[in-house]
């Protein structure tokens, strides 16, 4: 039947049309890794330029483009998709689901992100990349000549739509698709943090959508929201951007917190200390994340009352974050700690992230903020939270879930060398930047004068960046060297949660029988209270699967084409692209697709004919 048909498809067609959350997850990981390498390269080019005073490695315009694209790429095209990749693959497995709630939309989310990312990077070859910083403050961005900012606006609009779709998909999946017994308060922390991050996506991204829409209408159709000579107001952009932008940092870091919670618990051989406190801390951080956006705007002139309120709200976030830090430490306390690469990343994260948190509270002090604002101190702060939190989390998650996702274990020795090199390079690069900022080096400058006490620290910072670059190459080497270390048990780390209960490689239907969950750390419970295997919540039967579809690719391609129409004022092209988009949506609406069934016999065969 249709299952046989599925196997005869070519590999390429299969990946272009897949709606399987595991394959979509791998696509996110692959594309995210590519953009991560690209963003890293951009960073290294900038650091080379700043290696020596008045160095002439890059022209200032190129430097501006690099700093804009580095930030934009790392946030939107690397960190988020890599997290989405892990969420896609792992969350349905952790809650005992066969699929996500909206497989089609999930695939659409990926292709929108990818085409948005490609569009953004096409700007390099079309007369220059965006050059107004990743925050694209008006009027710098609305008046910027050339098409760079147009690419920024449309590229982010398309990939942002994909992110929003992905967020809704995770929310509904987590609420509606949990296995019997998997109550909300039994969900693994990674699933919880995905849930809260998806909430933040849902309520934060529309503000960016509107900000980008306004900037696009201003640049392409001559609207005047930000044009002061027509009565416009430039501060509106800053509010819209940061109403999105501040929750965005929690969208990034909360899932990383979730990853660390899983890893620290697994490799301490202990249940997570203070599970419910962890859940509520996550929720509170998510809530407060919406209350603090104006701390990015202390120097705008909102007045002492507004500044004080936002300063206090910002400092309040240190409380739930502190709860989390102490819970991780107390999970480790008295545990049988295994120093695997994944756990090393988690242990390295705690002090690194705390340092970022401390400078965060310093920055939140609105009076002192006037001194720190727009200096390298800020650059050091957010790299400590983003690299110290998110990137270490992504690498920890990669080493932890690699056997689940790709069916082989990454080499631990190479992994540990990679960890130490990366951590060393990271601190070497960014620690000195605190002091560069404090003695007055502004951020986003293409060059600096010698003999002002900035020379040595800039050189040190650049050397650190090279360490991180070489470390990443080591990680890529590890991926290829380790391919022979096949992992067939399905449970390489003596795991605690449902994703380790299924065979390796993961069957396309995930669970032959939906598991029955009896406690937090469902698998660990069965290992100690049961026979080590999950009880089934249903008899073995045919499994319903969704059909693949090429429409997500076509919808995204249509938007990609239409964007060129908008950027170059080729209205026929814009209309043609939108016709493709709405046409594909129409087909999707009109054509009923009921999927297919994998027969019971096939599942029995795959289980070894039990």
């Amino acid at each position, binding site marked *: 039947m249709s299952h046989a048909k599925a196997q005869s498809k070519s590999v390429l067609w299969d990946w272009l049309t897949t709606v399987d959350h595991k394959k979509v997850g791998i696509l996110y990981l692959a594309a995210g890794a590519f953009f991560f390498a690209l963003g890293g390269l951009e960073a290294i080019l900038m650091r080379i330029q700043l290696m020596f005073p008045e160095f002439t490695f890059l022209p200032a315009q190129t430097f501006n483009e690099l700093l804009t694209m580095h930030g934009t790429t790392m946030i939107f095209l690397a960190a988020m998709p890599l997290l989405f990749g892990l969420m896609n693959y792992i969350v349905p497995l952790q809650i005992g689901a066969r699929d996500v*709630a*909206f497989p089609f939309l999930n695939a659409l989310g990926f292709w929108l992100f990818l085409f948005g990312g490609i569009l953004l990077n096409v700007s390099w070859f079309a007369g220059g990349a965006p050059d107004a910083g990743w925050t694209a403050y008006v009027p710098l961005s609305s008046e910027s000549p050339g098409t760079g900012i147009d690419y920024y606006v449309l590229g982010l609009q398309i990939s942002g739509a994909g992110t*929003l779709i992905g967020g*809704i*998909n995770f*929310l*509904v999946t987590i*609420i*509606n*698709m949990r296995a019997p017994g998997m109550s909300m308060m039994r969900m693994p922390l990674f699933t919880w943090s995905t849930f809260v991050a998806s909430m933040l996506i*849902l*309520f*934060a*991204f*529309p*503000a960016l*959508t*509107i*900000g980008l*829409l*306004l900037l696009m*209408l*201003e640049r392409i*159709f*001559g*609207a*005047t*929201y930000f*044009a002061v000579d*027509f*009565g*416009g*107001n430039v501060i*509106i952009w800053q*509010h*819209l951007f940061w*109403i999105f932008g501040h929750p965005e940092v929690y969208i990034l870091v909360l899932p990383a917190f979730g990853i660390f919670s899983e890893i620290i618990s697994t490799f301490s051989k202990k249940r997570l200390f203070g599970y419910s406190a962890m859940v509520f801390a996550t929720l509170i951080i998510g809530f407060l994340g919406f209350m603090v956006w104006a701390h990015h705007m202390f120097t705008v002139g909102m007045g002492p009352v507004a500044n004080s309120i936002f300063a206090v709200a910002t400092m309040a976030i240190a409380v739930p974050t502190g709860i989390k830090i102490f819970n991780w430490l107390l999970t480790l306390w008295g545990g049988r700690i295994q120093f695997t690469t994944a756990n090393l990343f988690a242990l390295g994260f705690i002090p690194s992230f705390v340092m970022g948190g401390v400078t965060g509270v310093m920055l939140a002090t609105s009076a002192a903020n006037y001194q720190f604002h727009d200096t390298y101190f800020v650059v050091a702060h957010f790299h400590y939270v983003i690299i110290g939190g998110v990137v270490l989390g992504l690498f920890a998650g990669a080493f932890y879930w690699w056997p689940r996702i790709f069916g082989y274990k990454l080499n631990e020795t190479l992994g540990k060398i990679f960890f130490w090199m990366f951590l060393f390079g990271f601190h070497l690069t960014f620690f000195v930047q605190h002091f560069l900022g404090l003695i007055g080096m502004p951020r986003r400058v293409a060059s600096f004068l010698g003999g002002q006490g900035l020379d040595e620290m800039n050189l040190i910072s650049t050397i650190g960046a090279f360490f991180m670059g070489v470390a990443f190459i080591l990680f890529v080497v590890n991926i290829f060297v380790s391919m022979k270390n096949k992992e067939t048990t399905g449970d390489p780390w003596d795991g605690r949660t449902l994703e380790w209960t299924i065979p390796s490689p993961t069957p396309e239907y995930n669970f032959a029988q939906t598991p029955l969950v009896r406690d937090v750390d469902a698998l660990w419970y069965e290992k100690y209270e049961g026979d080590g295997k999950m009880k089934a919540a249903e008899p073995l039967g045919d499994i*319903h699967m969704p059909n693949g579809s090429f429409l997500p690719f076509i919808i995204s391609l249509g938007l990609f084409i239409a964007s060129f129409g908008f950027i170059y004022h080729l209205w026929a092209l814009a209309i043609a692209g939108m016709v493709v988009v709405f046409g594909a949506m*129409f087909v999707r*609406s*009109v054509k*009923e697709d*009921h*999927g297919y069934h994998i027969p019971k016999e096939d599942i029995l065969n795959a289980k070894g004919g039990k």
Partner: protein
Amino acid sequence: MEHQHTVQQTLPPNPEKATLEGRNKFLGFWFFLGGETVLFASLFGTYLGLKGSTHTGPGPDELFSLPLVFIMTMILLTSSLTSVFAIINMKKGNYRGLLLWLSVTVILGLAFLGFEIYEFYEYVHHGLGFTTSAFGSSFYTLVGTHGAHVAFGIAWITTLLLRYRKSGLTLTNAPKFYVAVLYWHFIDVVWVFIFSVVYLMGIGG
């Protein structure tokens, strides 16, 4: 799947939420509307920040005419009511009633859109272009985004009406109709805010 050609009499009482797919759509759409709320809130905020910035163009009190906007409001509110009738008929199993009331909803939506186009045309005539002032830009963006939502809703419901004109109610199309009507209500609620914040406050505030 096997239910798709079942006659209405055997459908469960709430066919829009009877399947997991239906429940997913229902919940997912509510979340989507949550996001849409932030989207419109951002536009309202922008408008409120810029409504006094009329530059050299006309301001709200010189342009807005309450009778016209009142008629538009009544039309849209009535269209929401007719979409409720449609869902009541759906729950009763009266498929023809569902199609009929949704058709009325679409016609009322079209009438609203016609008035809005006329309204914008008049304003441009009175000297308020999209690029005239920050007020003009933010007004057309807010109300125009709402209008675009109305147009999309009309196209969506019309598609459903044509696609399922002969099929009868099924477990597949019940959630589709239900969700489309939810969307229509949301558009209506946004308009109530536009009526109060833009028009009433524009004239009286």
